[in-house]
């Protein structure tokens, strides 16, 4: 009853080209943003725990997942090197702040992202010839090579004997972001803006070029998309997003990081987010991140509630987590975002079944 588009007529293509053409969706999104903002401002709604242990990492992972989704979901290039790009972003931003006096932190994030984009382009070159799981497996080269460089080149870690860096404090225009709430707001802002940009790219010609290359690259070429440019742009944009996410991961979340924090495990977790959330869906990146971040926490709390011996609980947790992934895929192979969409479609038809 409440989710109807009947009666909403679009009188211009401009209106139809909006990000959310259906009014209820717009309202829902606005409400969500308001809630997201309120979370930071009213400690009643969200404890520092929720902010700094759940929401901040959730947003950061969403951003990284969004980055990977641009590459894998939209441009169809499976990658297992996400964490490496995040590392480049983080260590890049660290070095820019360290070495350029007076470097504004946001600019440093952008520059970190750009360094990641450069690395992305370099490692994206093989994608012109290599496809599918072959490409996926070879992106592991990025993962291992970047981490190796970070451990081997002392300059990158400011000659720290062990390769550990400590992210500088985040200060913008004299204001110091040091409480969970302020960090959360910063991350929220960055993520919201970047998600908006991503959405814009995806609904315009760049996005279409990516999807065309994903769905059928030969045909895309015949239509006049240049494969090389399109793919490399996807690698660059995707790594840029991952790079910024990596910088946030270091600056707004962990604080002190060793290269190991960006290991293969992290790459995989982000890939899981994309696939579970929905390949080729901006919303899916967020849903997937929520699933992978929240589910283990939830299961962990649940297992404690059951008062099982810890080692049993931990193993059961892992098993349930795996089983749920399979379960959701069986229910909807296209991920949570699609499930959500089908839910909406059903709602639209409700109360008539068809």
């Amino acid at each position, binding site marked *: 009853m409440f989710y109807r588009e009947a009666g909403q007529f679009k009188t211009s293509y401009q209106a139809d080209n909006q990000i959310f053409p259906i009014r209820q969706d717009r309202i829902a999104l606005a409400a969500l943003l308001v809630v997201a903002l309120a979370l930071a401002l009213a400690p009643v709604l969200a404890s520092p725990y929720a902010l700094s242990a759940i929401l901040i990492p959730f947003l950061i992972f969403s951003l990284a997942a969004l980055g990977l989704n641009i590459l894998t979901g939209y441009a169809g290039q499976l990658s297992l090197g996400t964490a490496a790009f995040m590392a480049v972003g983080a260590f890049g931003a660290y070095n820019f702040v360290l070495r350029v006096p007076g470097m504004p932190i946001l600019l440093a994030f952008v520059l970190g992202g750009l360094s990641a984009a450069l690395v992305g382009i370099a490692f994206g070159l093989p994608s012109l010839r290599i496809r599918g799981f072959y490409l996926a497996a070879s992106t592991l080269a990025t993962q291992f090579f970047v981490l190796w460089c970070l451990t081997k080149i002392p300059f990158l870690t400011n000659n720290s004997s062990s390769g550990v860096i400590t992210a500088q404090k985040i200060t913008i225009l004299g204001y110091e972001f040091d409480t969970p709430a302020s960090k959360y707001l910063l991350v929220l802002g960055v993520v919201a803006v970047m998600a908006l940009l991503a959405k814009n790219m995806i609904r315009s010609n760049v996005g279409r070029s990516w999807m065309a290359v994903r769905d059928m690259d030969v045909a895309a070429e015949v239509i006049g998309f240049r494969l090389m440019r399109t793919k490399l742009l996807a690698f660059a944009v995707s790594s840029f997003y991952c790079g910024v996410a990596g910088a946030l991961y270091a600056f707004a979340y962990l604080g002190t990081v060793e290269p190991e924090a960006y290991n293969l495990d992290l790459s995989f977790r982000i890939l899981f987010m994309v696939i579970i959330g929905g390949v080729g869906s901006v919303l899916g990146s967020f849903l997937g991140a929520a699933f992978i971040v929240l589910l283990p926490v939830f299961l962990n709390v649940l297992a404690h509630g059951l008062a099982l011996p810890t080692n049993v609980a931990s193993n059961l947790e892992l098993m349930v987590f795996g089983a749920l992934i399979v379960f959701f895929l069986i229910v909807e192979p296209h991920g949570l975002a699609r499930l959500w969409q*089908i839910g909406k479609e059903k709602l639209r038809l409700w109360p008539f079944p068809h």
Partner: protein
Amino acid sequence: MTMNTAAAAETVSSQPYLSVNNIEVIYDHVILVLKGVSLQVPQGKIVALLGANGAGKSTTLKTISTLLRGERGDVTKGEVQFKGERVDQLTPNELVKRGLSQVMEGRHCFGHLTIEDNLLTGAYTRSLSRPQLKEALDKVYHYFPRLKERRASQAGYTSGGEQQMCAIGRALMAKPSMILLDEPSMGIAPQIVEEIFGIVKDLNQKENVSFLLAEQNTSVALRYADFGYILENGRVVMEGAASDLASNEDVKEFYLGVSGAGRKSFRDMKFYRRRKRWLA
């Protein structure tokens, strides 16, 4: 032509070999595609399933062969009987063993296998000795000499028509007693179209194989079929002996392209046809 009229004159007296009763199909939990389709195929007959693009012909065939599951389609109502037995819960493999084979729309050859290996997979359900296999292969090659020339090529690199022949030949290898054919003439040179339908008729008469064929080439289909069903928007809107359908004015106009004045040149169609829907 005369032969067909004769066949059509026989009424549907025999017990239906395949019967589809009032099936309803939904894709993806929300898209309702078949809204209660019923049809029968008597033993040893050729039945044509006609209808515009998107009417639900392929969906009907996939429902019968239970291939729908793989496409996230659900049969929410109705049942399918084959040889007097309910078959909607069987696996496709069991169906093929019982003698029901399908040629899918859009060719679906195994791209990395050679043409010959493609054909051989068709005989998977039969345990044949080497000479028997050879014999079965030769039969297919006899029908489609072009395949013989290309036998060692990977199917993915053959032309559209060659793949179509390969798909049909592959189904024949299973020696089915009932074949579901989805648009066998698509992309096939006219000469071969006639040959394919000749093969259909041949198998039908010599080996008593029954056919249910979804076909866009209505004129040919009705020429060879005994009965026909016309599907529109997921419903059967017309059924009857093929000859009756062929002479029906509406069918003539919309499916055979002949109006009162006879066949008109494609060049002379001066306006877009506003689709008349049977039940719109």
